[in-house]
């Protein structure tokens, strides 16, 4: 009795303010290191700008420095000039990824499920996977009627591999007992797919999509250097041609920020699709 009373008194006086403190503490700790990283990047950028500006050979490019770039960044955002290229680029990446998912997930399920298929496809797929998507560019341009379609093809062919192999990996990790139990409970193939296979592999599929988004976003810019007259890659090329280096750097900044955001969305999706208990 006595012991309990002291214990609860302790809880009342000591424990109660704790959560608040702990939260502030946690928030500080969670932000402190990322903030350090961002500061480091800016320092490097600033130093690079300073070095360029102080070298006679490179002085012409001084507007790559943070000051001019951020001004240009503000200009393209406030004038709205930034939105059109973003829209075009996201449209292409979206379709490319869409095709990659539509092809990669079923292909991965099959490869993960049938060992023979895995063995049959191993050499050709690894071979194709190691060819830079940009190597397909001339062929894509010939094969597709529009530039958009060619770029979407290049993105899809780059993004399909990580999705396929992550999905296959997920399927291979399915506990055979889950299928056995499902079978016993009277599951038809649709039930098995919907209630067992899909939830079991969701996390792996999204992990594959995260890798695919990274690849797609990287392939996009060089693909847009050619032919098209819209998109972030085109905007960079255009800025170079008109010698607006501050604007060029501002678009590089935009590409980085959007890439980061796409990745952050994927990380959230991976977390949400995980069935593992927290902690």
């Amino acid at each position, binding site marked *: 009795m006595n012991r309990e009373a002291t214990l609860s008194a302790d809880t009342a006086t000591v424990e109660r303010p704790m959560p608040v403190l702990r939260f502030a503490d946690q928030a500080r700790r969670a932000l402190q290191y990322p903030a350090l990283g961002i500061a480091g990047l800016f320092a490097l950028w600033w130093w690079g700008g300073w070095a360029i500006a102080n070298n006679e050979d490179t002085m012409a490019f001084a507007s790559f420095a943070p000051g001019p770039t951020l001004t240009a960044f503000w200009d393209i955002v406030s004038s709205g000039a930034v939105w059109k290229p973003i829209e075009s680029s996201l449209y292409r990446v979206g379709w490319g990824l869409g095709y990659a998912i539509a092809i990669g997930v079923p292909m991965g399920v099959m490869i993960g499920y049938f060992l023979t298929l895995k063995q049959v496809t191993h050499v050709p797929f690894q071979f194709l996977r190691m060819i830079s998507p940009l190597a397909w560019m001339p062929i894509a341009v010939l094969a597709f009627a529009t530039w958009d379609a060619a770029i979407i093809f290049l993105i899809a062919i780059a993004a399909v591999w990580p999705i396929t192999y992550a999905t296959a990996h997920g399927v291979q990790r399915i*506990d055979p*007992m*889950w299928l*056995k*139990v*499902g*079978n*016993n*409970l*009277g*599951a*038809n193939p649709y*039930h098995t797919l919907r*209630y*067992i296979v899909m*939830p*079991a592999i969701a996390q792996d599929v999204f992990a594959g999509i995260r890798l695919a988004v990274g690849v797609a976003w990287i392939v996009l810019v060089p693909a847009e250097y050619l032919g098209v007259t819209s998109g972030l890659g085109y905007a960079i090329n255009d800025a170079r041609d008109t010698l607006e280096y501050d604007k060029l750097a501002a678009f590089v900044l935009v590409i980085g920020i959007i890439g980061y955001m796409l990745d952050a969305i994927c990380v959230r999706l991976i977390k949400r699709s995980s*069935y*593992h*208990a927290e902690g």
Partner: protein
Amino acid sequence: MGAAISIDYITHHYPKQEEPTLKDIQVTVAPGETVALIGQSGCGKSTLLHMLAGLLLPSEGCVRINGHQVIKPSPRWNMMFQKPSLYPWMTVRKNASLGLIFQGRKRDMRDRIDELLETVGLTEKAEVNVQSLSGGQQQRVALARSLATDPELLLLDEPFSALDAFTRVALQDEVTRLARERRISVVFVTHDIEEAVAMADRVLVMGSNPGTITAELHIDIAHPRDRNSQAFVDRKAELMGYFGATRAPAADKGGAEAEAPTSETESEQAESAATESRARVRAA
């Protein structure tokens, strides 16, 4: 309600194995009867159970349930395993409901599951993710999941062997009670002699290489069974003798096994034991 099973001369040969795993197994189970299968590791108990469930087809012979040959799994005969094998992305309720969802029996599903979860003592945990449950609670969910489709036959493959002693005894009694209430036939595999005596109407002892039924013991103690009663203790000792008989002679050392007959003389010795009990021994 319970299923009548007849196992008609099953022989099973796994591909790439030299010897058949099971040979000429012939067993019948009456509706509502509970039968235990015991025998040393690797003698083919799980194999036989998978055949009863329709998860594996025998190379010769067949299993009939209520006169119909078993050729594929069905929610009417449900198998439970040593691991609960729940779906970790679902709540307790969803796991238990799955058989009904697969059968498209979604009407009054909620009430049925509520009732079932109450029976297995998990009402409070209905909406909780199964990963947060203890091993015993998880096995209870698996039991509820198996019972949800109103099976006529439960097949249990060492279902309680991973649990602590208290939980194990509680679940043995619970399954026995539910099976008797619902008149479900039960065939279960166990390594635990006490479990066999506590739950079964009849115990089949299996020998290995190839797997055959070597002895059969009726346990006609009324339910609920008192584990300390003389009859219970006697049956346990008797069964221990047969169980020892199925072991390789080299493994026989001391204790109850010391009196166990060796494999060569197993039928005569077992026969003498049978005069005292209702055990019948098949000629090996």
